[in-house]
């Protein structure tokens, strides 16, 4: 894991001091809310429905047990004893007091964390594959490159006031576990004739105008990666629209210019940028990469798992993934108990996950964009002990990638932008499909719910997506089918007229029944939908 150097510490400490003074001035009435709002947003502090909300960055979703315990401490001391893990691999606290914000940021800084650039029109937290460094299918660990991008983008003077927010994801496997092509820039580390390079996909995103990022460059030598990213941003910063917030994202610019013209401009800019010496010397990259050295895993550790406890065996089959090192496994902790709130964890649960990481996973945890937690390096011989501890804490729901593993934004229960509630819909769907046998019969089925068009719940990328809208003051839910945020990326198609809260649950049941009737051997829901199209599902839903 990356450890702050003196520059990282100095930057974060200076920001904490600066923001503390800004808070003092605001509380003293020396500055207005209009003056203060952009300052607090730069530090991740929103004003939501019930209180201030603080969004804390978890760079590329990686953290250690000390940091995880600090997240629990903040939940316990300053909030209401829980936190909400987000689709950007961050954590949010919903009940923060402004007067506590400086102390919270000081506490975060003490464990090398912060809330900088978790809001505002800047480059946000860099996201990545939650299995990075552990996945059997990756060609390298993408996190050193994500960390390099984090350092490059932190307080980048030219990109602090972009036309709109900007999100970057970095992966290094063909299986896309980070919704890479639905980011403003998606980078995939690829291998070409034994050399690693970066494929740049630019101009993806969800929101009110969802777009899949086109490939802008199939192979950028890694020595040029920062310069190429800088060129991509410069063209956007120069020509991205600032006159219309709904057309300000880079996806709109690329859509209007065309990918070919955008690429031409980036290539031209790149020639200039490359002469500026932005890319770090190899020694600096090596310094960063050394901090992501694989943990000392014993490849001769036993590979067999005692599956005599049937509940444990079910969990292993659903929530445990292959590790690149024999005798080890990746543990996926579901934060989606049936009827629970997707992504929420109590301080006690957060502490427990930290303890398990320290004892069994070489002190590492990951936050996933699907709002779950990962222990990336667990010996197979320890899986039973890990499962027992998780089960006792309500954290062993064996539903990874099943219909009840729902992504849901906070929705109208918390969010000032939302038009409808997301969480109660997620709870009702999970409860309707609570029978695990039924869920497994349905197989991989990614259901995603957003409470407004901003799509924080990734509904466009759901095999089944739900969008909550305000219809004359009443919550209404639009259903879409056929989306995917994975390597088979696609955008969902709206089925037709929307439903009320209970109606959308019934509609989903009709959709899944139709899938079971139509599918052929080995087909996932989304495969069947792509084969047969919308018509039979529409017929099943609306008659």
């Amino acid at each position, binding site marked *: 894991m990356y450890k702050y150097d003196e520059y990282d510490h100095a930057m974060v400490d200076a920001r904490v001091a600066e923001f503390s003074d800004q808070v003092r001035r*605001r*509380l003293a*009435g020396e500055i*207005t*809310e209009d003056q203060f709002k952009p300052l607090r947003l730069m530090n991740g502090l929103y*004003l*939501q*429905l*019930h*209180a*201030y909300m603080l969004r804390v960055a978890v760079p590329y979703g990686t953290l250690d047990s000390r940091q995880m315990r600090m997240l629990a401490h903040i939940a316990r001391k300053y909030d*209401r004893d829980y936190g909400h893990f987000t689709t950007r691999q961050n954590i949010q606290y919903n*009940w*923060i*007091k*402004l*007067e506590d914000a400086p102390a919270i940021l000081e506490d975060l800084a003490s464990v090398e964390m912060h809330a900088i650039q978790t809001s505002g029109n800047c480059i946000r937290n860099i996201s990545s594959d939650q299995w990075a460094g552990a996945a059997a299918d990756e060609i390298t660990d993408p996190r050193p490159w994500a960390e390099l991008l984090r350092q490059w983008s932190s307080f980048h003077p030219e990109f602090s006031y972009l036309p709109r927010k900007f999100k970057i994801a970095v992966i290094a496997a063909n299986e896309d576990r980070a919704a890479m092509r639905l980011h403003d820039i998606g980078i995939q580390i690829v291998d070409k004739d034994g050399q690693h390079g970066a494929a740049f996909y630019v101009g993806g995103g969800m929101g009110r105008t969802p777009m899949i990022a086109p490939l802008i460059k199939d192979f950028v030598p890694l020595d040029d990666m920062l310069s190429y990213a800088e060129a991509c941003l410069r063209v956007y910063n120069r020509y991205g629209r600032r006159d219309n917030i709904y057309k300000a994202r880079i996806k709109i610019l690329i859509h209007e210019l065309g990918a070919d013209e955008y690429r031409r401009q980036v290539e031209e800019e790149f020639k200039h940028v490359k002469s500026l010496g932005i890319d770090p010397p190899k020694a600096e990259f090596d310094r960063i990469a050394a901090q992501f050295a694989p943990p000392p895993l014993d490849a001769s550790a036993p590979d067999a798992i005692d599956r005599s406890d049937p509940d444990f065996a079910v969990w292993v089959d659903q929530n445990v993934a292959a590790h690149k090192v024999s005798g080890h496994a990746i543990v996926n902790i579901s934060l989606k108990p049936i009827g629970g*709130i997707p992504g929420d964890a109590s301080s006690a649960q957060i502490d427990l996950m930290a303890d398990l990481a320290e004892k069994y996973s070489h002190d590492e945890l990951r936050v996933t964009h699907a709002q779950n937690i990962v222990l990336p390096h667990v010996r197979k011989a320890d899986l039973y002990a890990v499962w027992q501890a998780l089960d006792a804490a309500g954290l062993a729901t064996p539903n990874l990638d099943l219909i009840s593993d729902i992504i849901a934004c906070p929705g*109208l*229960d*918390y969010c000032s932008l*939302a038009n409808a*509630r997301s*969480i*109660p819909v997620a*709870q009702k769907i999970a409860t309707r499909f609570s029978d695990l046998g039924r869920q497994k019969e349905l197989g991989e089925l990614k259901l995603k719910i957003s409470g407004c068009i901003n799509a924080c719940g990734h509904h466009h990328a759901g095999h089944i997506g739900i969008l909550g809208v305000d219809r004359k*003051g*009443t*919550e209404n839910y639009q259903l879409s089918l056929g989306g995917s945020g994975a390597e088979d990326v696609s955008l969902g198609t709206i089925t037709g007229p929307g439903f009320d809260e209970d109606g959308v649950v019934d509609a989903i049941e009709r959709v899944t029944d139709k899938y079971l009737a139509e599918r052929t051997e080995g087909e996932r829901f989304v495969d069947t939908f792509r084969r047969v199209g919308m018509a039979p599902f529409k017929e099943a839903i609306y008659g």
Partner: protein
Amino acid sequence: MKLLTGNDLKTGFVTWWTGADWSLHIEDAADVGEAGEAILAAEEGARRVNAPYIINGEQTADGPRPAHIKDRIRALGPTVRPDLTLKPADPAAGDWVI
């Protein structure tokens, strides 16, 4: 009826204009009638409350209530966590806004 609401500067908590001051409890909210804009201007100047705004409300048997679901949720708290509302442990609290 018209209600005046905002978020308390220090805590961010939802607050309601009572006719003389601010209260965390919707039950204390006063009908500001046509005076809302003037109160709003004065209170913004006092800088105790963030972004106050006027909403439509209705008088019910339980007291004043906002007309729109968003402000009803603001008034009582998240519907999915009744334990966090202003009436802790009231099992009916989560249904109140529907």
